[in-house]
């Protein structure tokens, strides 16, 4: 039953380019990439229990690596792969302290990682374009419909992979490591190996999505892929949708981007309203939208 509903929703989403405007498609395309960011974050936070305040460290690495390579004439698909690889390396760099530190300390390291990346980009402005941003010569496609389908397909495939990973035996062990590392270790599981795997997978998808996003936008800038406020949006999206659900993170991201767009007439106040809504959800429905629905479903 659930699968049928999901398929119908998917078909409806896939048919959107035939009957909605390019503007709506553009908003949703960005929202889908954000969905992948949020799902990758949920894997680390919800399952591995790592408070990662710097999802944009991984995303920014992927985005800028891809963008810089493209400026040197490397084909687009190779740039995207290189971006993903750069993010995975970044993921290992983050994972090293994560294996030693707990909670707030690791959170701070990730926050600092983002700040350092941001500073490096600004300092080497000659290569990276600094605060203005890096112009990218190639695009994925000029047609908004194609871009939309690409983003949707990417979201669905990433979602399937991340979801099945989280429900697999490895995902369950990961969850155990996140909740009680010592007990998981006592049961004979290799905590370090599972956490490293979680970081690698999360970084892979963050990097891929970051690289594809810059080829869609045609520019990589600190404000769109590195700034802490972008990371905060991703975290809000995942918590809003529901932690430990993967799917919820994607829904939360789409909701957040679309809501931000609908509230745009409010001008500067729109961020205020979106944050206020997110705060209310956190206070009153801590399981997030999907978590709340799931629990109601169980009760009924």
């Amino acid at each position: 039953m659930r699968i049928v509903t999901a398929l119908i929703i998917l078909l409806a989403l896939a048919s959107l380019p035939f009957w909605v405007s390019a503007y709506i498609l553009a908003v949703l395309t960005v929202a889908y990439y954000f969905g992948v960011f949020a799902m990758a974050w949920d894997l680390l936070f919800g399952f591995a229990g790592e408070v990662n305040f710097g999802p944009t460290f991984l995303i920014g690495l992927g985005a800028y690596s891809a963008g810089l390579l493209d400026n040197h004439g490397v084909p687009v698909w190779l740039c995207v792969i290189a971006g993903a690889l750069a993010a995975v390396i970044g993921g290992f760099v983050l994972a090293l302290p994560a294996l030693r530190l707990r909670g707030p300390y690791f959170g701070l390291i990730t926050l600092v990682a983002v700040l350092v990346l941001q500073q490096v980009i600004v300092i080497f402005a000659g290569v990276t374009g600094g605060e203005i941003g890096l112009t990218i010569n190639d695009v994925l496609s000029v047609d908004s419909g194609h871009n939309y389908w690409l983003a949707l397909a990417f979201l669905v495939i990433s979602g399937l992979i991340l979801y099945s990973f989280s429900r697999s035996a490895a995902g369950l062990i990961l969850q155990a490591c996140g909740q009680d590392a010592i007990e998981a270790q006592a049961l004979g599981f290799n905590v370090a190996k599972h956490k490293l795997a979680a970081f690698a997978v999360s970084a892979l998808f963050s990097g891929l999505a970051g690289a594809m996003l810059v080829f869609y936008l045609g520019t990589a800038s600190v404000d769109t892929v590195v700034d802490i406020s972008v990371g905060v949006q991703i975290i809000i999206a995942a918590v809003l949708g529901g932690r430990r659900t993967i799917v919820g993170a994607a829904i939360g991201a789409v909701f957040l981007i679309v809501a931000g767009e609908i509230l745009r007439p409010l001008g500067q106040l729109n961020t205020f309203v979106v944050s206020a809504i997110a705060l209310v959800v956190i206070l009153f429905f801590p399981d997030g939208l999907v978590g709340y629905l799931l629990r109601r479903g169980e009760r009924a």
Partner: protein
Amino acid sequence: MRGLQILVDGFAISTLYALGAIGFSLIFGVSGVLNLAHGGIMVAAAVAAWYIAGPLGAGQYVGALAGVGCGIIAAFATYGLVVRPIQRSRAIPRDETEIFVLTATLLWGIMIQEAIAYFFTDSPITVRPLINGVVDIFGVRTPANEILTAAICWVSIGLLWLLVNRTRAGKTLLAASINPRGLTLLGFELSSVYLLVWAIYGVLAAIAGVLLAMFLGTSSNNIGVLTASAFSIVVLGGLGSVSGSLIAAYIIGYLETVTAYLISPTLRTIPSLLLLVLVVYLRPQGLFGRR
């Protein structure tokens, strides 16, 4: 000559960092809350001081006092509207309270930032100094207000020390940070202890915010950076250790000033960030942490 300049300027900025970070550290020590709306409270106080002293024309003294008042209100609002509901919520699992407080205060900080930008201004503001004039310290021309700033900070820190170590209320705070359960068993109401600590926190953060806005100027866009710097100072010094925060503030303050003067102002924050990564990596409990 330049060395002296660094010494003087670094002292003032470090003292401000210390005052800003101590409140943050105190809240964590007593109630285990990492308040990521910290920068928001500092800037809210600064903007109130600027608005009442400048556009409303009430003068800088009334403005500064009103700013501190506003900071206390903002601190209570943070506690009452955000932190307390999460701590009391039954739907949030105990072991996840921490991450919910982090996320919620982060959101709250963004709301403060956007509200200030919308209702007042998002361009940089400078609060008028309390006193004018320049003092010559061994050839370094220093604004008198910079000296007053450092003095106010140290008096506030001294008063805090007296409060915590010499009064009954302060000793309750200390006890709450060591063993809250034991305190409740002795018949103390924990929630009134928390109210007191948030009030103290509000005063400290507000004074730091107003003085910082006099010294360097501030803007609603600075909120994130202010929170991050308080967070890093507190972690560097050791979470929950007030004297650790004090020393860490001086390390960071001087490191930044030296970098800005001798290398380049654009690199100002880089060495302190690297130091932080190094310390947290080699000694996660911070330089003077308890655990």
